[in-house]
């Protein structure tokens, strides 16, 4: 800190310049202000969405969350179908992407030859670089007709058939391609890099000594990974899954393009659905009345609250692993 005083020894500087520490006072104010801008944005998003959703909060109250009726013409707004649709598609995505993402992280961090690691890791991360709207176009024209439709028909004919045992109502027909299943599968691909990249960082933060101790006791490589490395990084891995969930909740374009956009509450993944993000994107242009617009903003407020909560929990979990290991680089968290 004494370095900063150095300038004030110069006798030639004017008194104003000295008071400002030769420009350091304005500089420090500026960088603190821009940092506060960033924090202010976070708070501002919440405040603005809260204020602008006041009409529906007054008109609907808590029934906005619990009611299953979304009837813009009758001015009745219940967001339950979208909340359920969002959770259902995200859950499908997680069930598929979690084991895959963790497997990739383990492969890259523990097994992959060093010269391939960078390239393979980069390729997996490119999945996150492809824009949502391109995933959507791929979904409409290629993924649904050539993969989701055969899969859906198969599921509908086996577990979705009431005469089949076991009968799973989540695969009940009818099925026309655009569905929660299609959205969930595309989301799985989209959140895979989030889960694998952050789990990868978490695994790299596990100290070497932990692995070496397990190997020295006679564990196989897999036993070392399964019984030592993964438990050590468990909270961080959980964090990566929650971050993946957060990403799945808010994905808009790809989901809007493949989910079918029907506001109904069903138990079947094969029927068309709606998510919170996709209803905002899809119905925005139609929202002619102030109450309708306010309802969509309130859906956005719910989405914001959910993703804020998930992000905070996830970041704390990921931080807890890198904090635990003082000598390891904290990863990208």
């Amino acid at each position, binding site marked *: 800190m004494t370095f900063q005083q150095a300038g004030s020894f110069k006798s030639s500087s004017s008194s104003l310049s000295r008071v400002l520490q030769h420009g350091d006072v304005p500089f420090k104010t500026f960088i603190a202000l821009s940092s506060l801008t*960033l924090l202010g944005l976070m708070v501002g998003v919440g405040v603005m969405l809260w204020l602008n959703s006041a009409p529906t909060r007054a008109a609907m109250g808590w029934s906005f969350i619990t009611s299953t009726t979304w009837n813009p013409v009758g001015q009745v707004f219940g967001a339950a179908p979208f909340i359920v649709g969002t959770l259902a598609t995200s859950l499908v995505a997680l069930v598929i992407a979690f084991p895959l993402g963790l497997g990739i992280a383990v492969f890259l961090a523990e097994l992959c030859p060093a010269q391939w690691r960078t390239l393979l890791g980069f390729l997996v991360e490119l999945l996150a670089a492809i824009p949502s709207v391109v995933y959507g176009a791929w979904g409409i024209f290629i993924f649904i007709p050539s993969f989701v439709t055969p899969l859906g028909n198969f599921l509908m004919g086996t577990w979705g058939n009431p005469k089949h045992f076991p009968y799973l109502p989540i695969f009940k027909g009818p099925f026309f391609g655009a569905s929660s299943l299609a959205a969930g599968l595309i989301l799985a691909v989209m959140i895979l890099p989030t889960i694998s990249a952050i789990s990868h960082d978490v695994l790299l933060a596990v100290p070497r000594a932990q692995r070496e101790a397990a190997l020295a006791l006679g564990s196989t490589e897999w036993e070392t990974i399964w019984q030592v490395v993964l438990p050590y990084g468990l909270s961080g891995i959980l964090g990566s899954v929650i971050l993946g969930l957060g990403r799945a909740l808010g994905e808009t374009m790809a989901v809007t393009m493949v989910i079918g956009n029907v506001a109904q509450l069903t138990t079947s993944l094969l029927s068309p659905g709606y998510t919170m993000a996709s209803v905002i994107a899809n119905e925005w242009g139609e929202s002619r009345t102030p109450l309708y617009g306010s309802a969509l903003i309130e859906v956005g407020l719910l989405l914001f609250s959910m993703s804020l909560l998930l992000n905070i929990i996830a970041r704390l979990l990921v931080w807890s692993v890198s904090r635990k290991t003082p000598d390891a680089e904290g990863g990208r968290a």
Partner: protein
Amino acid sequence: MNTLQPRHLKRSTTHEQGRRVVNVVMLGLTGLMTLIALAPLAWILIEVLRRGSGALSVSFLTDTFKPTSLGGGGIWHALVGTGILIGLAAVFSVPVGILTAFYVSQHPNTTLGLAVRFGTDVLSGLPSIVVGLFVYTLVVRGQGYSALAGSLALAILMLPIVVRTTEEMLKLVPKSLREGSLALGAPEWKTSFSVLLPAAMTGVLTGLMLAVARVAGETAPLLFTALGSNNLSTALDKPIASLPLVLFKYAVDPSKVRNAQAWAIALIIVTLVLALNIGARLITLWRSKMLQ
């Protein structure tokens, strides 16, 4: 010991083999999972290239919008619009991002420093559609849909990436450089801008590239801000066209001509995004080799 060992070995042979088999199977499975994950990437890239290159032509790039009855026209208006939106967003986000990165790297353990780092992480996880709605309530509700509002939304999405990468590179600048400059009597701001920033310039550059790559395909926030337009426009206070918005509109259009055009736009966006990502990665690799 000697009397115990043979018995121990005999008893565990089958168990031992089982452990080895599990080891090989599980390790192989993780490799297989990596391949499975890369399959959709290859599938998307191949289809985008195959279908996109068919509809791509010079006139498609240089023409503006025309109805399908007149051939469908081109996307010049959207190229211009996307250029303006992204350029303006960079102008907003880069200075704020660099200043914030200075703050975070100089105050890593203060309450505000930690809060800002945490806020940066959380902001980067916010759904882009929420950011779009925010800018709508802040700007569009009063002033109407505009290019300015669209670029503001993109700037908010770019900010955490610029902060993060600049901060990472500032951390790599040797402490002695900073201390040397301060010891020579240079004030903090001069040290930051003339010594630290040039040394971390590659970080700023890669950050900017990754941030542009992140928002180049953003569609959802523009629905509430830039709105889109069929006209060639450079006015900042009017709705403006953008590539991803046109891609969305054309992909869900019943017309086959529009669908083909959508693939051509997808090819352009994907090429841009991949080039930026690969470029940023190469710069980072080159830079870390230099430091070693």
